[in-house]
């Protein structure tokens, strides 16, 4: 039993990290496709080994800790950004029996870990002692805590319907009907909040390169920069797989494909949606972004929770 558990842990980590690395290439190719360019196509067949080349290059770059920075915090921040996202993958049920740690508080664990993600931004930006980094970090912190508030509330509809925080039980509760139908509002809000949490276009104002150089990670070099990069793609993978678990029936699907295949297909669909959004949407203004969160999405999330609770109670009687 224990050996099986260790194999699953190693498998999940290896799969998730290689998926995130693969995404770096995949996104560049897909963006190029949307813009009628070729994208990276030189290294290996279709350019798939571009990622390997990039990683080797990053490892051999100078690992520079700025003399004006807050050294200890500067080193810890990139560790935080990857570790907090990777930890969330521990509770995801990829298929029956394939789950690193099947916690009963899985959903809350994910919310807690995504809150920790804010620290990496703030610590990184503050420790850099660079004005652009500081501004990026402030924006990032304000944006992430705003969207975190109703990210949690939007998932409570799912909790009410499944009557559990356990991700496996949530998937099993969707046997007859995927939650994206009764919880469509919750799905829409979670998706938007997820994009903001992953700091992706259109919500990538913390690192808006046209005004803040690279925002909170301007001063990071070598693999420390790579960590922020990896963290972003891990975040995209995480949000996509959580959307699938909470709203699109996880591994459930017709029996002609194994459960894990269904999970991967659905997840990749949402990853492609993320990339398509990057290829097509402009950034909003910062005050629009914050106003949208507090004035539109928060009341909607509360309304969704309230209506779901009422409907479930009426149904029960």
């Amino acid at each position, binding site marked *: 039993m224990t050996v099986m558990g260790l194999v699953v842990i190693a498998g999940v980590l290896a799969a998730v990290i290689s998926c995130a690395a693969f995404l770096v290439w995949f996104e560049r190719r897909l963006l190029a496709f949307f813009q009628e360019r070729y994208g990276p196509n030189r290294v290996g067949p279709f350019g798939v080994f571009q990622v390997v080349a990039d990683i080797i290059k990053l490892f051999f770059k100078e690992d520079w800790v700025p003399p004006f920075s807050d050294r200890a915090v500067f080193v810890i921040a990139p560790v935080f950004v990857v570790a907090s996202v990777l930890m969330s993958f521990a509770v995801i049920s990829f298929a029956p029996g394939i789950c690193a740690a099947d916690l009963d508080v899985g959903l809350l664990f994910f919310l807690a870990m995504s809150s920790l993600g804010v620290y990496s931004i703030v610590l990184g930006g503050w420790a850099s002692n660079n004005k652009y980094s500081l501004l990026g970090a402030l924006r990032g912190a304000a944006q992430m805590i705003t969207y975190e508030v109703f990210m*949690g509330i939007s998932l409570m509809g799912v909790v009410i319907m499944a009557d559990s925080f356990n991700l496996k039980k949530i998937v099993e509760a969707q046997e007859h009907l995927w939650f994206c139908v009764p919880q469509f509002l919750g799905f829409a809000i979670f998706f938007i909040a997820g994009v903001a949490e992953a700091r992706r276009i259109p919500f990538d104002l913390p690192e808006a390169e046209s005004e803040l150089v690279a925002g909170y990670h301007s001063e990071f070099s070598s693999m420390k920069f790579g960590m922020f990069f990896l963290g972003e793609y891990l975040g995209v993978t995480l949000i996509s797989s959580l959307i699938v678990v909470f709203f699109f029936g996880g591994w459930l699907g017709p029996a002609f494909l194994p459960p894990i295949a269904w999970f991967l297909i659905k997840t990749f669909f949402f990853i492609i949606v993320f990339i398509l959004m990057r290829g097509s949407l402009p950034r909003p203004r910062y005050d629009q972004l914050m106003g949208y969160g507090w004035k539109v999405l928060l*009341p909607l999330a509360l309304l969704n929770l309230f209506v779901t609770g009422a409907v479930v109670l009426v149904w029960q009687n």
Partner: protein
Amino acid sequence: MSDYNLSLFYLLIYSTTVVILVAGMIILSYLLGGRHREPATGEPYESGILSTGSARLRFSAQFYVIAMFFVIFDLETVFLVSWAISVRETGWGGFAVILVFLAFLLSVLVYEWRIGAFDYAVSGREILKSIRKAKGI
């Protein structure tokens, strides 16, 4: 070992692996990376312009206000979470209680909205209005 302890044990192994993995990457890049020293190496990169003053700036109080709202609304989520998991047990009684709680919360939201706490920039319409007023149009 019970099921519960077993999953906690797996989580411990998982988190240890994650930390070792990430720390390993950082250390490896520290060992493999080059070193160089030039006149501008130790300066902050601020778009190629020489940096003036420290980055410990004073910034907009708006960010502080957001942090306070976050505390208010995230604490509220704690109550909503505990209600969400027990909807079926607490029934309509619990629903009524949470309704009162939500009413308080929404009044806070409306209040914040009315005092303009969510307006992060001065609106163009307000500026135009004040200009018109000043000119007496």
